[in-house]
C-alpha cells in the first residue's frame, strides 16, 4: 500500500495509507491519551479523549477513527484539544466514585493517570451519581459498575476476542450499564470467566477477586511465564508480592495468546499456595507417612533403587516422567533411567 505523509505537531510523519491519525502520532512518539481504544480490538471512537485538531475539518475528530491522509495537518495538544479533553475527564469524574484510596486499580488506572496529567479534579459537574450494587457473587471477578466509564472495551473483548458476546450495553442515557442479557449477574449468564474483560478494563470497574486487598499495584513484581495447564502454551504474568503469587495478569506480548486466557490460567494458579502442598519428604513407616529430612529420603531412594538394580537387573526398574514438568526435568529423568539405572523403561502419559 502507498504511504501518506502528514504533519503532526509540526513534524512530518510518513505512514502506510490506511493508518489512523492516532497510530501515526504514536509511531512518531507523540502521545495521545485514549480510554476506549485498544490496538487488539476494533476502533470505536466512543470516549473522545483522543480528539485532535485537524485543519479543514469541522469540530475535533477522534484520532482513533480518523484515517491519516496526504498533506493532513494535525495538532494533538492545541488549547482547544486540551480543553476538550479536560471537559471529557470532568464529565467522567462527575459520576465516578472518589475511591482511589482503597481502589484496587490505584496506580494502574487510566482515568486516574489522565486526571493527573490534565490536572482535572472531580466536582465540576455536580449531579446524580450511580449507586449500583457491587457484584461479587462469583469466585473470580468483582464488578463495580459505579466505576465503569462505558468505554466498551470489555464488550468488544468478549465479542471480538472470545466470540461469546456475554456482555453489552444495556439501558439508555445516564442509566447505561454494561451487563449480560437481562441485566443478570455474570454468575447467572453463560460467562465462562475467562477474564478477558478484566484484562482490558482501564479503571477499577472489573478486578480479579482473589487479588483484592493483597497488594498495591506498584508493590507487585510481574514474572512472565508459561501456563501449566493445557497444551496451547499461553504466557501470562505471575503477580508476586513478598514471595507469594497473588494472581495472574495478562501480558499482551504473549506470542500465542496475547491477552487471552481461560478461567484456569487466569484464576487457577492459587494451587501454588494450597495448604495441601507437600512440603517435606515423607517416608512410609509401618503404613504411615513420617516426615523425613532430604538426606534421609534421598539416601533411602538411592539405596533401594540400587538394591533392586543389583538383585534383579536394570529392567526391573521403571519410571514415569511427566507431561506437566519442564523439558529440563524430563530430559534429566530419561537420562537418569538410561545412564544411571541402565534401562529404557521410561514413559509418561503422552497418551492421555
Amino acid at each position: 500500500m502507498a504511504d501518506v505523509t502528514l504533519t503532526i505537531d509540526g513534524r512530518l510523519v510518513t505512514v502506510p495509507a490506511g493508518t489512523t491519525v492516532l497510530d501515526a502520532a504514536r509511531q512518531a512518539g507523540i502521545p495521545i491519551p485514549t480510554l476506549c481504544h485498544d490496538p487488539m480490538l476494533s476502533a470505536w471512537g466512543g470516549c473522545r479523549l483522543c480528539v485532535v485538531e485537524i485543519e479543514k475539518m469541522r469540530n475535533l475528530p477522534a484520532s482513533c477513527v480518523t484515517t491519516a491522509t496526504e498533506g493532513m495537518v494535525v495538532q494533538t495538544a492545541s488549547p482547544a484539544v486540551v480543553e476538550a479533553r479536560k471537559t471529557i475527564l470532568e464529565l467522567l469524574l462527575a459520576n465516578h466514585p472518589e475511591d482511589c484510596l482503597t481502589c484496587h486499580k490505584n496506580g494502574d488506572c487510566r482515568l486516574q493517570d489522565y486526571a493527573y496529567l490534565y490536572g482535572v479534579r472531580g466536582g465540576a459537574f455536580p449531579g446524580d451519581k450511580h449507586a449500583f450494587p457491587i457484584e461479587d457473587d462469583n469466585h473470580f471477578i468483582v464488578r463495580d459498575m459505579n466505576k465503569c466509564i462505558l468505554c466498551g472495551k470489555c464488550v468488544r473483548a468478549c465479542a471480538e476476542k472470545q466470540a461469546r458476546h456475554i456482555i453489552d450495553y444495556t439501558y439508555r442515557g445516564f442509566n447505561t450499564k454494561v451487563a449480560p442479557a437481562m441485566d443478570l449477574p455474570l454468575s447467572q449468564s453463560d460467562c465462562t470467566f475467562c477474564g478477558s474483560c478484566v484484562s482490558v478494563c482501564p479503571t477499577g470497574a472489573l478486578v480479579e477477586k482473589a487479588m483484592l486487598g493483597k497488594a498495591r499495584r506498584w508493590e507487585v513484581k510481574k514474572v512472565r511465564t508459561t501456563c501449566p495447564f493445557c497444551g496451547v502454551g499461553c504466557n501470562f504474568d505471575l503477580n508476586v508480592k513478598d514471595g507469594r503469587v497473588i494472581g495472574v495478569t495478562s501480558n499482551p506480548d504473549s506470542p500465542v495468546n496475547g491477552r487471552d486466557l481461560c478461567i484456569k490460567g487466569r484464576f487457577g494458579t492459587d494451587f501454588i499456595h494450597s495448604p495441601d502442598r507437600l512440603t517435606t519428604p515423607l517416608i512410609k513407616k509401618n503404613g504411615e507417612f513420617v516426615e523425613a529430612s532430604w538426606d534421609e529420603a534421598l539416601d533411602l531412594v538411592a539405596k533401594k533403587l540400587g538394591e533392586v538394580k543389583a538383585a534383579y537387573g536394570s529392567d526391573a526398574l521403571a519410571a514415569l516422567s511427566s507431561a506437566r514438568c519442564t523439558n529440563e526435568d524430563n530430559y534429566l529423568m530419561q537420562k537418569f533411567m538410561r545412564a544411571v539405572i541402565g534401562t529404557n523403561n521410561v514413559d509418561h502419559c503422552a497418551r492421555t
Partner: protein
Amino acid sequence: MAGLATSFGSGAMTNSFADIEQTDLLFVIGANATEAHPVAGAMMMRAVEKGTKLVVADPRRIELADRADYWLQLKPGTDIPLLNGLMHIIIKEDLYDKKFVAERTEGFEELKATVENYTPEKVAAMTGIPVETLYAVARLYATSYNALICYTLGITEHVCGVFNVMSTANLAMLTGHIGRPGSGVNPQRGQNNVQGACDMGALPNVYPGYQAVNNPDARAKFEKAWGVSLSDKVGLTIPDMMEAAVEGKVKAMYIMGEDPVLTDPDANHIRHALESLDFLVVQEIFMTETARYADVILPGASFAEKDGTFTNSERRVQRVRKAIEPIGDTRADWQIICAVAGRMGYPMTYGWPGDIFDEMASLTPSYAGINYQRIDACGIQWPCPDCEHPGTCVLHADKFTRGKGLFKGIDHVPPAEMPDAEYPFLLSTGRILYHYNITTRHSAGLDAYRPEEMAQLNPADASHLGVATGERVRVTSRRGSLLTKVQVTDRVPPGMIWMSFHYKESPTNVLTVSAFDPISKTGEYKVAAVKVERFTESGGMPDSRPPAL
C-alpha cells in the same frame, strides 16, 4: 503421535495456532476445544464469526457444534468409516489433488482400494450421519482452498487411535491440504508439556529428538555424551509397566508428577500394580491417589518455583520462569533427580536449568539452534537446526519429514467394549473447562465453582431412570462402580453417559476399559459399557432400564 509419524514422519501439529484464523475451513474431529484448549477454542469461534467454515465431528453436541456449518454426530468409535466415506466421495467425484498425490505421496492405490468399500450409504448406516451431509462435507473439504484438521484425544483415545490419526492424514494428503499456512493436520496436546516430554525422550523407544534407542549411531552418540554404555532394548510403555509390576517383573518404580491411579484407565488394575511393587518413590506436589502407595514421597516445586521450558502443541519452546522460592522444604524436580543420581554414583552437576537445556540441545538436532536467550521474548518453534534458523511455523512445506507422505488403507476397528443388555449405556470421558486433570482441584476458586462430577445424561434416559439434574446415580462397569451427580442435558445423545476424570470422589477411571491401541498403547477412554442406576440415600436403588433408543 505414532500415527502422524507413520504418515508424515513427524508426530506434531503441522501448523501453528495462528493458522486457525487463516484457514477457510476448520474440520474439528474429536476435539472439544472450547473446554480442553479454551484459548484455541476462542480462536476457532473468532474465525467462524469472520466467515471461516466449520465442520465438527463429535458424538456430543459440544459448544463448537452449535456454531458449526455441519455437525456430524457420529456414533462413538466410527471415525474411520466417516473419514473413509468422505475420501470415497472425494475420489468418486474426482475432487482430489492429483498433482499433490502424484508428486508428494505414495500408497494411493492402496487407499483407493480400501475406501472403495465405504460407500456413502454404508457409511451413513455405520456412523449415523445422513448421506447428503457426507456429500456436502466431502465437497466442502475438498474444494476449500485451505482446510485445517484439528483433533485431540477424541481421535487418539480409542483402540484404533493410531489408525484414526492416519485416516485424518490420508484425508489431508488426498486433497493436498497440508504443508502451507492454513492447511494441515493438528493434534492439540492435552497437557502443557506433552510435546516437550516426548521431544525430551521421556518415551521407552527414543532418546531426545526421537532418536531411536535401537539405532546404533544414536546410541553411540548418547553413550559418548553421557559417558556410559546404554541399553539397546526398547523399554516398557505405561500399560506394560503396570502389567510387568503385577507379574513381578518390575520391582521398583520412580513416578514423577503423574497420577496414574486417577488418570489411567481401569484404576483398580493400576492400584494392584502399585501394591505389587517392592519399592515406589513418588515425586509430587500434592498427596495424590498414586502417592498414597509410595514408600518415599519427594516434594517437588511447582512451575512458579523453578526455571525451565515447556514446548506447546505448536512446537513452540517457551520459558518457564521462577517467580518465588520453593514452598516449604520442596525442591525443583531437576535438582531432586541430580541428587538421587549423585548418590548412585553418577554425578549430575548443573548450575541451573539453562545448562541442562544446552546439553539437551547439543544432542537434539531439532532443538540445536534453541537457547534461553533466543526464546526469551517469543519462543521458537522446532525444528530449529542452528542459531541462525528462525524456527518452523509449518511442517512438511516442500517435502514430508519421511520424504513422501504415506497413504495407508485403513478399515474400521470397532471399540473393545460396546453396550449390551447388561451394561446398556456407553460411557465416554473427557475434560471440562473448569478443571485441568487434578491440579485445579487445589485451586480454591475453581474447586468451589465446580466442586463435583456432573455426569451428562440425555433427558430421555434421565426420564426413564427417574433422575433430575443434581441427583445421584450409580454407574457400574465390569471393572468398577461409583456414585456421581448428573446433569441432564441433550448435549449427549440417548444411551450415552459422559464424565470427566477430575474428581477422586467419582473416580471415572475405575470404570474405563483396560484396552489399548496396540501401537501407541493409548487407553480407550472414550468408549466403555456401563449400567446406570438411580441412587437414593434411603438405599432404594431401582433396576436400571435400557436407554430409550
